[in-house]
């Protein structure tokens, strides 16, 4: 064992010494790897430190918001006593009990909300008490105390915090995987550029016995030694950035050493994977093909014909053909460099999305009024309650539940609006993913926050008008304009049996084929854009809603929006007020969504700032690729330029070759940057708007967003890198050349 360790230590000492020596003595060659690995380590360390602090911050918010583990609502006197007395023969399982009383005027009796703090020093103990004692034994006893009154209870995040941590870990893992993949992508690109330019050297190594293991070892230890050298500066930058981000939000900062070591380990894994693939591929090449690539010939794609390159426009035409000869190299370079500026734009888009999610107003309380008659004074009373800023009652029915659908004339279909085609002639299309809703003044206020065309209050004045969304599943399906007509189907009967296993479009097709419907025509009063449309909402007047649903109008829920600046204590007081108010109407159940708390927690997590920071770092990767690749490329073309000069090209011609090359790459990078930036952003937009809601069931929607400043920065970065990465090698070429000439002159003089 000791011998093994000794050998390992000797091996490490030898290989690391060699690797360090090689890297340091050729530092110019490895400069871009220093920068790339430092960026990767900074991203990993920042994410790890920030997400570690998120856990702590979330715990702080939870303890601020909740001082109880479980709340039992609307218990009767007997049920309350069952809690107060505890389990017969068991010691008390809770630390503290807080009880609030509400008088139900309809039933002329008091009901109690009970808030319990369980005994236990940590999560495990508290959950053990909850699961084994409370849920299995105590809860049954409380139910038995008054079987007529169902027991409604909720556990708080104080007890479920471990699940929250799991979600945090999941987000962290996802971020690390995405960052890891991008990092591997970056290092592989850089490594391939390096390999491409040093194929000859690898070919010689392989000619004299180097196998994959040898090639991999050499490359890995070199990258490892770079990683060691950049680790401290990168982590220092990450710690400072994380501290600043948290300090801005007045959140205490903590940074245990293990978080930084963990980030270092991720960096190491990325290096390992990044070096492995290019070296594996390299080791499978025949050495002779690598040796043959000593010059730039491996980058040249044969034009298969000769051009008249020495015409009157020598440098311009010559360099245009050069761009064509090196088209594969140019295309690869453009794609790999510009993709990072596009990712910068996408990163800002994601940051914007997280900001929208956090800022999106959500009801703090949902009052279930499905069992009571809605009265207008309810709304007035709620508005009069301190801390409530907005109230909205809703009544909604899904079209599928009513066997209903919307019939659309073919000419109103948007391109690629994929709906069911019901008739042979193709005159109509039908859509079934609809939700019929009522509209009132509060709904109009809510809808006016979206972009819209037309008069949102039209259905309030005329039952023949509706307000519709522009899409289904967040995808634009129709080409309607305000004033156009839609037809809503009212189901009458089936003329044949329907396959019970069908769903979605297949079911709708069958319903349309075998159903008899009455179609009611409505005029579009307004079209709302950017509203979430997992099911496309159609807003009717109360009377029209009764017509299309075939039922008497009953409102389901009153959504109560609280002032987002309320403190946790004030929201708890407001909840108690609402429960008391609900009792005045016979016991309206109040569901606390804790949206203010959740928004605060999400805000504390600063995902938008992290995404912005990561996006900025991604932007800095682009110049690395540009300069590393172009420096090596032009270095290898110096022989070609020297030959040109030997056959009569002037120094100014050579300079112009570089300038034309730079302009050419600048123009191409401008085009690529715009095209790729737009395409990637659009794909991301489709992903978060269509795929995520479809597969997660989240009714969210975001606008398409390409911030002008992000595009401007990307374009400036790409164009200037494209030009300068070609022009700067000219200066070093001339410097080297002047030295050579000087030496030659000196030799001649002697």
């Amino acid at each position, binding site marked *: 064992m000791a011998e093994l360790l000794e050998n390992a230590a000797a091996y490490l000492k030898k290989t690391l010494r060699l690797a360090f020596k090689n890297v340091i003595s050729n530092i110019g060659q490895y400069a871009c790897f220093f920068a790339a690995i430092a960026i990767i380590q900074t991203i990993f360390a920042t994410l790890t430190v920030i997400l570690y602090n998120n856990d702590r911050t979330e715990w702080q918010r939870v303890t601020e918001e909740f001082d109880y583990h479980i709340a039992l609502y609307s218990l009767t006197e007997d049920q309350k006593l069952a809690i107060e007395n505890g389990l017969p023969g068991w010691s008390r399982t809770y630390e503290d009990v807080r009880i609030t009383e509400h008088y139900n005027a309809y039933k002329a009796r008091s009901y109690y909300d009970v808030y319990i703090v369980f005994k236990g020093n940590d999560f495990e103990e508290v959950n053990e008490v909850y699961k084994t004692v409370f849920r299995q034994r105590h809860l049954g006893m409380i139910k038995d105390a008054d079987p007529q009154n169902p027991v409604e209870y909720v556990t708080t995040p104080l007890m479920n915090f471990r699940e929250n941590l799991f979600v945090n870990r999941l987000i962290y893992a996802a971020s690390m995987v995405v960052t890891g993949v991008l990092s591997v992508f970056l290092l592989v690109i850089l490594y391939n550029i390096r390999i491409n330019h040093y194929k000859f050297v690898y070919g010689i190594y392989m000619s004299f016995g*180097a196998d994959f293991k040898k090639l991999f070892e050499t490359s890995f230890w070199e990258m490892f030694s770079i990683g060691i050298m950049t680790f401290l500066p990168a982590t220092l930058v990450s710690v400072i950035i994380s501290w600043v981000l948290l300090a801005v939000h007045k959140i205490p900062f903590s940074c245990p050493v293990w978080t930084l070591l963990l980030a270092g380990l991720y960096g190491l894994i990325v290096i390992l994977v990044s070096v492995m693939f290019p070296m594996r591929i390299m080791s499978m090449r025949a050495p002779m093909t690598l040796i043959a690539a000593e010059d730039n010939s491996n980058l040249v794609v044969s034009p298969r014909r000769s051009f008249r390159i020495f015409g009157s426009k020598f440098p311009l035409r010559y360099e245009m053909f050069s761009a064509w000869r090196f088209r594969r190299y140019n295309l690869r370079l453009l794609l790999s460099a510009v993709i990072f500026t596009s990712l910068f734009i996408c990163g800002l888009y994601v940051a914007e999305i997280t900001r929208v999610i956090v800022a999106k107003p959500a009801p703090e309380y949902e009052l279930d009024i499905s069992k009571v008659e809605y009265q207008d004074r309810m709304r007035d009373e709620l508005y009069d309650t301190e801390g409530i800023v907005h109230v909205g009652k809703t009544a909604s029915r899904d079209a599928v539940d009513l066997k209903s659908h919307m019939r659309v004339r073919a000419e109103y279909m948007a391109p690629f609006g994929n709906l069911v085609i019901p008739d042979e002639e193709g005159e109509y299309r039908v859509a079934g993913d609809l939700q019929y809703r009522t509209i009132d003044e509060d709904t109009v206020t809510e809808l006016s926050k979206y972009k819209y065309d037309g008069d949102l209050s039209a259905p309030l004045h005329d039952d023949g008008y509706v307000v519709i969304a522009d899409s289904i599943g967040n995808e634009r399906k129709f080409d309607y304009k305000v004033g156009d007509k839609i037809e809503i189907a009212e189901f009458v009967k089936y003329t044949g049996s329907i396959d019970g296993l069908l769903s979605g479009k297949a079911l709708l097709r069958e319903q349309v084929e075998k159903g008899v419907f009455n179609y009611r025509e409505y005029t579009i009063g307004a079209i709302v854009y950017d509203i979430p449309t997992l099911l496309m909402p159609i807003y009717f007047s109360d009377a029209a809603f009764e017509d299309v649903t075939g039922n008497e109008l009953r409102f389901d829920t009153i959504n109560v929006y609280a002032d987002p600046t309320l403190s946790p204590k004030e929201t708890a007081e407001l909840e108690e007020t609402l429960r008391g108010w609900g009792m005045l109407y016979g016991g309206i159940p109040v569901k606390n969504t804790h949206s203010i708390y959740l928004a605060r927690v999400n805000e504390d997590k600063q995902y938008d700032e992290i995404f912005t920071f990561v996006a900025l770092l991604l932007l800095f990767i682009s110049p690395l690729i540009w300069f590393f690749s172009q420096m090596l490329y032009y270095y290898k073309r110096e022989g070609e330029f020297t030959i040109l000069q030997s056959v009569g090209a002037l120094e100014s011609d050579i300079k112009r070759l570089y300038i034309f090359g730079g302009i050419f790459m600048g123009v191409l990078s401008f085009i690529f940057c715009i095209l790729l930036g737009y395409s990637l952003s659009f794909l991301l937009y489709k992903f978060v708007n269509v795929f995520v809601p479809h597969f997660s069931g989240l009714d969210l929607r975001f606008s398409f967003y390409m911030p002008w400043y992000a595009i401007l920065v990307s374009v400036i970065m790409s164009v200037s890198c494209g030009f300068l990465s070609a022009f700067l090698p000219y200066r070093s070429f001339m410097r080297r050349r002047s030295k050579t000439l000087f030496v030659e002159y000196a030799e001649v003089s002697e």
Partner: protein
Amino acid sequence: MADAKSQYILHTESVIKQYKQYDEVVTAVDRADIKIEEGEFVAIIGPSGSGKSTFLSCCAGLERVDAGHIYVRGQDITKMSFDELSRFRGQNMGFVFQRHNLIPQFTALENILIPTLMCNRKDGSYDETLRRLVNTLNIKDRLHHLPSELSGGQQQRVAIARALINMPQILFADEPTGNLDRANADEVLDLLIKTREEIGQTLVMVTHDMNIASRADRIFRMDNGILTLDRDYLDGKRKTITGY
């Protein structure tokens, strides 16, 4: 059959190597067969573009063949994986390229020692060979110079030292004197033959130069990818040896 193959240090069977140039397939080596015994000096001659360098690269495992078998010391190198082939090449073969192919950023000494590094030779295990090669090849005072600071002949001698540092059983040389003047060419050839005699090495050389080829035990001729034994030369040589 395996025994028959293992009596030769190099034995090829119907080796075919083709290149695709656009829509056209060029056969660089067409069913080439050769059997070379240990310690032999074999020269391959032929016009430019006849496929002799390609054949040599295939024999050394520097290029993959499209069909056929190549046995080196009885082992079929066409069946080896990339890594096995690399290791095998490092341990058994040396290669001198037409253009010296020295790595420009390494000194002469570093270039010579590359094969020892690739084959994980222990420090010091090659010192004696190095000393002997440096003396024989007369490059002692140029060891710490970059290739760009050496003359053509010196560069080629460094390349020979690099090919020989691991004492390979078989040395492939692709026109090693092609870029040298007569004096340098003779000197390099003398060195190769001298080293071969010292360590009992097999030498397979591609050359244009009949003067050089005439010093070989056997000469093969490559024409349009087809390899044949040069009977005239062989007969002439027999005549010289046997006194006909």
